[in-house]
């Protein structure tokens, strides 16, 4: 391969990446305009973390144990800070995609020079890049004030950040696949609620999976929901290199599978679009 042919092969890729980078940048800037709104919404975390501290402080006190599910009270609360931050930072993509399908707006997107799915993915990243740090900061502040700062090693933080990025990517492709079901069922609100509650429960948002009975633990670990919430949070409070590698492998495998599923659903759904002009 000559130097010129290499350049021509990489130029389109670079140009494509630049296009999506710009989409993400614009989305991030738009979110920053409403930073006050984002901060205000994050205050809900103060209530949530406060209630969780009360609940778990009482529970630890009742059991008389310093460890529950292998976590001290402080680590349990920091686990919940991260799970709540991930959940509250997610834009409601299922409803947005569903609205696009219902309103017919998706027909306009089909003719645009970008992938509909990737366009929304990079917009999603831009929005989450503003919301997540704000939520984490607010949740972290209240947790630090009530149970003390997180005692994680600094080395683990880049690994946790990577796991969070993979987690929200999985969440996005799951949301996209569910939202696109609007091509067939029209109203996906009920699916949205159920998916959210899957993340809350067997995803590990409300409690670590170790608290579940053994059978339920096995089911939860076999499904992708725990990779969105439990995986990164457990890594934060109980870091190990083996745990990180294992989580990344599962996240990548599920991420690729869900990317394919979202594209297949989109491909079949887009066939049902009829454009009449006017």
């Amino acid at each position, binding site marked *: 391969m000559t130097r010129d042919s290499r350049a021509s092969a990489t130029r389109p890729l670079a140009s494509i990446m630049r296009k999506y980078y710009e989409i993400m940048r614009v989305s991030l800037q738009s979110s920053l305009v409403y930073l006050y709104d984002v901060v205000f919404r994050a205050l809900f975390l103060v209530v949530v973390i406060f209630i969780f501290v009360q609940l778990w402080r009482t529970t630890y006190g009742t059991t008389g144990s310093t460890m529950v599910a292998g976590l001290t009270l402080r680590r349990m609360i920091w686990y919940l800070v991260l799970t709540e931050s991930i959940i509250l930072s997610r834009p409601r993509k299922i409803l947005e995609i569903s609205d696009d399908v219902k309103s017919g707006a998706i027909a306009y997107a089909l003719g645009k020079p970008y992938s509909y799915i990737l366009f929304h993915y990079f917009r999603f990243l831009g929005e989450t890049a503003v919301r997540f740090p704000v939520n984490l900061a607010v949740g972290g502040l209240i947790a630090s004030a009530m149970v003390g700062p997180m005692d994680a090693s600094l080395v683990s933080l880049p690994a946790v950040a990577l796991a969070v990025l993979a987690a929200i990517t999985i969440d996005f492709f799951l949301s996209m696949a569910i939202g696109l079901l609007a091509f067939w069922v029209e*109203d996906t609100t009920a699916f949205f609620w159920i998916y959210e509650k899957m993340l809350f429960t067997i995803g590990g948002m409300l409690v670590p999976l170790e608290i*579940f009975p053994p059978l339920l633990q096995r089911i939860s670990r076999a499904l992708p929901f725990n990779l969105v919430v439990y995986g990164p949070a457990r890594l934060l409070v109980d870091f190990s290199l083996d745990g990180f590698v294992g989580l990344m492998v599962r996240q990548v495998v599920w991420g690729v599978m869900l990317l394919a599923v979202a594209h297949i659903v989109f491909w079949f759904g887009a066939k049902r679009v009829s454009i009449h002009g006017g």
Partner: protein
Amino acid sequence: MSRRWYGRVWSNARFVVAHLALNLQAAMEYRASFISQIVGMMLNDAIWIFFWFVFFARFKVVKGWEFSDVIMLWAVLTVAYGIATGIFGNALRLSKIIAEGGLDFFLGLPRDVLLSVLVARLNISALGDLLFGLILFVFAGTLTLGGVALFFLVCILAGSVIVSWFVLVNSLAFFMGSSENLSMQMLNALLSFATYPFPIFSGPVRFLLFTLIPAAFIGYVPVMILKGANWWFILGLTAFAVGLGLFARFVFLWGLRRYESGNLVIVRV
């Protein structure tokens, strides 16, 4: 005087029932959406019960509260919330309606403005809450005539507290303009605190939950009444529900004097 008062209550009750019937008919036009929202909300509630089931399977008792107490708490909360926002669906959206000048339409009606705006919309998913709460009660409640009557009494009183609280915090829009976020935070705080066992909270927080964020009146107090607490609890809940209702109405009417039309042009079919 008493006949006039009685007549007004009766007339308003008929007005609410007529609206409920119309709203239900309209909602059922889209049968699949209607059913999916109800079933979806029931599943949503069931998942919270699942959380508590897992929690109590592991920890059994938390400061005297057992799984059965949490079931009763959720039965009361979901029925109360279902009644409150099912019938008075606009209670949730009142600040948005005020900020966008949407009260114009209701000001021209020959009925009480607050009542008219509240009943103009049915929250379909709240019917899922209502149904779910009733199922929980059938499994966990006292199924005698007295038990059922007491359950509905506390649910109606708790529902009244919920609607009044929603009206109160949403009325901030009269004074602050767009207060949707603040109102939403206050609503979430009320419901979040109410869904957890009250004994986990200590001194100052308990005081807060009986005053500024009256979550105790929609969760803890009704459960205590159903568990056989004395008449003071019933009297206290009744007095608080009536007092908060009157106060919310006063604040709404006070704010209404500051209301400015948005000259919003909308078509109501």
